[in-house]
């Protein structure tokens, strides 16, 4: 089994000691850290996402895996000599919409996006419509991800899109939406670029949107 496969296995089995030891070995032996991330860490987190989708593992397991991955990547960081957005896939501004204090779904999406290499700026829950706009202008993310758990709060999501339009910012950023009451038809109706039915799907959508941006 090559070292990338061993990293993959260590992430999937959530073995902190083994992950740290392997990361140190990669640094010491001068093994390509980018490949280690792609073939080991990211692939491991992808598998973690699959296991969660089948409820073979639960949120605490997923958070542990993400922590272990971050610990391992921190060890690789000095030899990577890259900024996070260079080694990643893109920058995402993420938050639960105004009025909605539920963020469990958004947090799951965040873990899997980070596992896939995205830089995620988490605005938290009950994020004011205008805060999304302000933080967009400040941070210039590639994607804004907005979630809602309540039907009563999801009606605030289109307000973010409308405000971006009125400020002529809409074409510069991709918008993806999700959450329990959000349907794909509604996402299309309000003019979102992407919709994720699950955390796993959200990652696929984010990757697709990044491809569209780079075309």
């Amino acid at each position, binding site marked *: 089994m090559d070292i990338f496969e061993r990293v993959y296995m260590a992430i999937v089995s959530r073995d902190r000691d083994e992950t740290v030891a392997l990361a140190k070995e990669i640094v010491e032996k001068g093994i390509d850290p980018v490949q280690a991330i792609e073939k080991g860490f990211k692939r491991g987190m992808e598998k973690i996402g699959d296991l*969660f*989708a089948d*409820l073979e593992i*639960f*949120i*605490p397991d997923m*958070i542990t895996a993400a922590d272990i991955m971050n610990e391992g990547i921190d060890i690789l960081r000095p030899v990577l000599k890259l900024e996070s957005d260079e080694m990643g896939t893109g920058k995402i501004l993420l938050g639960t919409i*105004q*009025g*909605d*204090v*539920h963020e*469990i779904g958004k947090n799951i999406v965040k873990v899997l996006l980070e596992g896939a290499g995205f830089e995620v700026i988490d605005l938290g829950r009950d994020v004011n419509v205008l805060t999304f706009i302000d933080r967009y202008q400040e941070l210039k993310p590639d994607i804004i991800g907005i979630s809602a758990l*309540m*039907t*009563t*709060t*999801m*009606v*605030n999501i*289109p*307000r973010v899109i409308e405000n971006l339009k009125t400020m002529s910012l809409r074409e510069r950023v991709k918008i993806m939406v999700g959450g*329990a*009451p*959000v*349907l794909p038809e509604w996402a299309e109706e309000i003019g979102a670029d992407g919709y994720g039915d*699950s955390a796993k799907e959200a990652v696929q959508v984010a990757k697709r949107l990044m491809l569209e941006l780079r075309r």
Partner: protein
Amino acid sequence: MVDYWEFIRRTEKGEIVDEKDFDRKIGTVAAEMVNKYGIRYTPEDPVPSDDSLADRVFEASLELFTRLGIFVMDTRKVVYFSKEEAVEALSSAPSTITYGSGNEVVHVPHRTVEDSRAPVVFFSAVGTPVEEEDFVKVCMSYAQEPLADTYSGPLITKYRGMPVTSGSPVEVEAGIWNVIKLREAARFAGRPDIPIHNFMSIAERTDATIAAARPEFGVQRGDGLFTAAIAEMKVDFERLKRIAFLLHTPYVIGGLYGPLMGGYAGGPEATALILVAHFFLGLFAFRAERHNAFPININQVCNTTREMLWLVSVSGQALARNTPLVSASNAFMAAGPCTQMVMYELAAHSLASTVSGWHLNPAAVARNRYPGHASGMEARIHAEVGHVTARAGICRKDASKIVNALLDKYEKKIVNAPVGKSFRECYDTETVKPRGEYVRLWEDVRKELKNLGLDFKLVYM
């Protein structure tokens, strides 16, 4: 005795806690309790008959609650309670509550495991979004049902063409409209005094709720209002403000707890414990007089999967055997109205809940997300099965067999459950009666259920 204001005082005390640390602690302590108390999920027996399991679930939940406490989001403090305080809160909690006034008064007692008294059925559209023009008729479809002891409504997301955005003036106006229309629908259904167990579903914010809670808009003495905990074991001042208001009113305070199976607690065993722990949260933080549980499978957004039915059953038994509380089980179905599958799901959930000591609160259908997909007929089906189950004296062992037979019929279809038909499609909207197709489908499924051991002659006795 920890009264409400002692709880509020404690929300400002102690160290600031990182919310992420609190979230992680839930899974760690819950897993520890599952092991310590030997709680084991039995997929082959979705409605367990093991009294000692129920008692261990309760003890484990009590210890879990005292170890975790309640996280207050506004102060980032955790409020802890001793075991003695928790036990005292239980002993002083009401074991019977009363809804209603005028011609319709409903006494809701604590139910026991395998209770032969029919469950009280709180008919509810569970906040399903509907068009403004359909609101009253959808409400009538619930309020007119003979087995509806109380009722509550759907919600609208647009009011006179304006989106009902939380925190806006429209929310206040739509909240008042909500209350007026609920009582109007009750009148048109021929039951002007039917208790409304949750009179606000449109407004999120407390100011809008308080603005609408006035007798001149139609809220009556003995109606009620739910306040939901934030998953898991969290509250915020927005919710606590409602309680400060409700304590001065004649409205029944309901606590609403919806832990996610697969979420911060973990699997079915740990989620059963965290669900029961939420009932203590309800007693201290919400001063809840009655309690509603809606545990949900985090991926399937329903509680009719095998492990969810087990979870509903063991948590209900734990509460029924060890507390005096008045508790209801909220039904969340994967399939939508006018499908065979939703009937199987409703029957399985109602059976598992009824024999385990719950009252019933049906029903969210089509994963509670498809606009217009809800009607009184689903609640009727759930209620009929609950009444039959109790009156026939069905025991947990027999219920488990029937639930297994029902799971065989729908379990594999949950991932791709049919959305079913909308209210307009499955009801005659002029007469507000279910269409023949829906009624016949239920008659056919009833025959299947009869073959499984449910005697529907007992329903309207």
